[in-house]
């Protein structure tokens, strides 16, 4: 007869104190994040289940995304290289990296809106750190996005446009993207749990941002006086820290400063919001 004596509870001898007159919100929020990071295995396990469920019964699974991105890159590459009067070999690496980075940003922003509401069943039943759901959302998008890497390699191989040693700078760029993703999944997740009108708004904003940001068109196509305003676009700044090192021999200092400032602001807003409203999330979802 098996019994549970070998398995202990999560916190033996734990003390849970909550005093509404002294809520100690900062400590609670930081504790939530620390515990969430420590239990990252749980987020990873949940994220892999999410991916498996999303592509259940499909033969290619997430590689469908690879195929559709490849078709998009090929189609847009042919069309826009002739519209912009550039050679395909010059334009293709740009559009490939550009589209893949943009699709990743778009997928994360869209998914961020449901990072907490989709975990409603868990949130209302188990006292888990909310950070677990945030990391789960970010990780599943990171894994899905990674399925696009072969396209970038194939395009580099076909056009012979290998980036130089400065390509390593894409790594800090990816780190910035990751921090932004976590902050967004936390902030938008909370906002969308409280206000159910936010996801459609986010969808429209992202669509507009796709055309207003230099995803398909190169920033150099703008007049220099106008191009100077581009770093004000957070999407452009963060995207360029990854794309620049891979296809343009590095991003400008202005772009880096802008991206770091936006990331810090985003993380600050998300943290402030989390500290203030963490205790309300269970009532919102």
């Amino acid at each position, binding site marked *: 007869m098996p019994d549970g004596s070998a398995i202990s509870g999560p916190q033996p001898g734990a003390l849970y104190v*909550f005093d509404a007159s002294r809520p100690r919100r900062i400590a609670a929020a930081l504790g939530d994040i620390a515990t969430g990071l420590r239990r990252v295995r749980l987020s990873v396990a949940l994220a892999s289940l999410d991916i498996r469920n999303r592509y259940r019964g499909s033969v290619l699974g997430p590689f469908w995304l690879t195929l559709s991105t490849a078709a998009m890159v090929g189609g847009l590459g042919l069309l826009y290289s002739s519209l912009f009067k550039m050679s395909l070999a010059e334009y293709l690496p740009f559009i490939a990296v550009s589209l893949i980075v943009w699709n990743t940003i778009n997928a994360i922003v869209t998914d961020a809106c449901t990072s907490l509401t989709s975990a409603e069943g*868990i949130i*209302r039943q188990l006292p888990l750190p909310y950070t677990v759901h945030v990391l789960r959302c970010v990780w599943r998008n990171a894994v899905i996005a990674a399925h696009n890497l072969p396209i970038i390699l194939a395009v580099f191989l076909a056009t012979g446009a290998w980036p130089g040693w400065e390509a390593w700078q894409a790594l800090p760029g990816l780190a910035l993207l990751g921090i932004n993703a976590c902050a967004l999944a936390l902030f938008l997740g909370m906002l969308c749990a409280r206000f159910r009108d936010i996801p459609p708004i986010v969808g429209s904003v992202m669509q507009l941002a796709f055309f207003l940001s230099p995803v398909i068109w190169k920033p150099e196509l703008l007049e220099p006086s106008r191009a100077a305003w581009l770093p004000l676009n957070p999407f452009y700044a963060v995207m360029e820290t990854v794309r620049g090192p891979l296809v343009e021999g590095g991003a400008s200092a202005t772009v880096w400063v802008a991206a770091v400032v936006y990331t810090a602001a985003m993380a600050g807003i998300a943290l402030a919001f989390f500290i203030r409203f963490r205790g309300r999330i269970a009532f919102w979802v």
Partner: protein
Amino acid sequence: MPHIHAEAVTIEFPLYHLGARSLKKRILANSPLRLRQDEASRIVVSALRDLSFRIQPGERVALIGHNGAGKTTLLRTLAGVYEPVAGRLEVAGSIGALIDPSAGMDPNATGRENIVLRGLFRGLSEAESSTLAEEVGEFSGLAEFLDVPVRTYSAGMAVRLSFAMATVMDPEVLLMDEWFLAGDAEFMQRARAKLEALVSKAEILVLASHDMSIVREWCTRVIRLDSGRIAQDGTVDEVLGAPAAA
């Protein structure tokens, strides 16, 4: 020492997506008791109002009351899911919650995967969770169905799995909803023995129940909730023997 101290604990559920102002007015007009408007003119349900009680080690407390009296909300609050809007709550000791048997269950994953997931939810390592899977698999008696997705299970099989998963623990403070006492008869005999072992090992039991025979059998103290307030608090005979309960 494990204990639960609650001082004036209050929980209010905001009703956010009610829409039109006229609807608000109608709802407020019809239900002056537990629905009210807070300072931000949101409509809130007072789920728990001003609850104060102390539970010492060794106590077996039953929460009774009508549907909607706040029994499950109180259990969830004690488990740390809901933060009180007012009052102070202190729960010392490792908490084991048997509130919703299917909490965190993924219907597309196999039984074994769900058990490992449950282990991770509890903060165990993957190796410990795999050990857990063996133990739970054996107790649930699911045999070869353990490696089949949970959504293909019959209702009875799902109950066995969730029960076996939820009860593999050794908490000091056991919070239990009466759901866990329902189930198919053949499995319930083994389940009953398991629950009794769990209850006797826990320092504190808080059980929400409608079944007075179970309350009389297992509990030493009864708290009767009515519309989110404590209506009666005393020994089993004091509360259940009182004329109001008849």
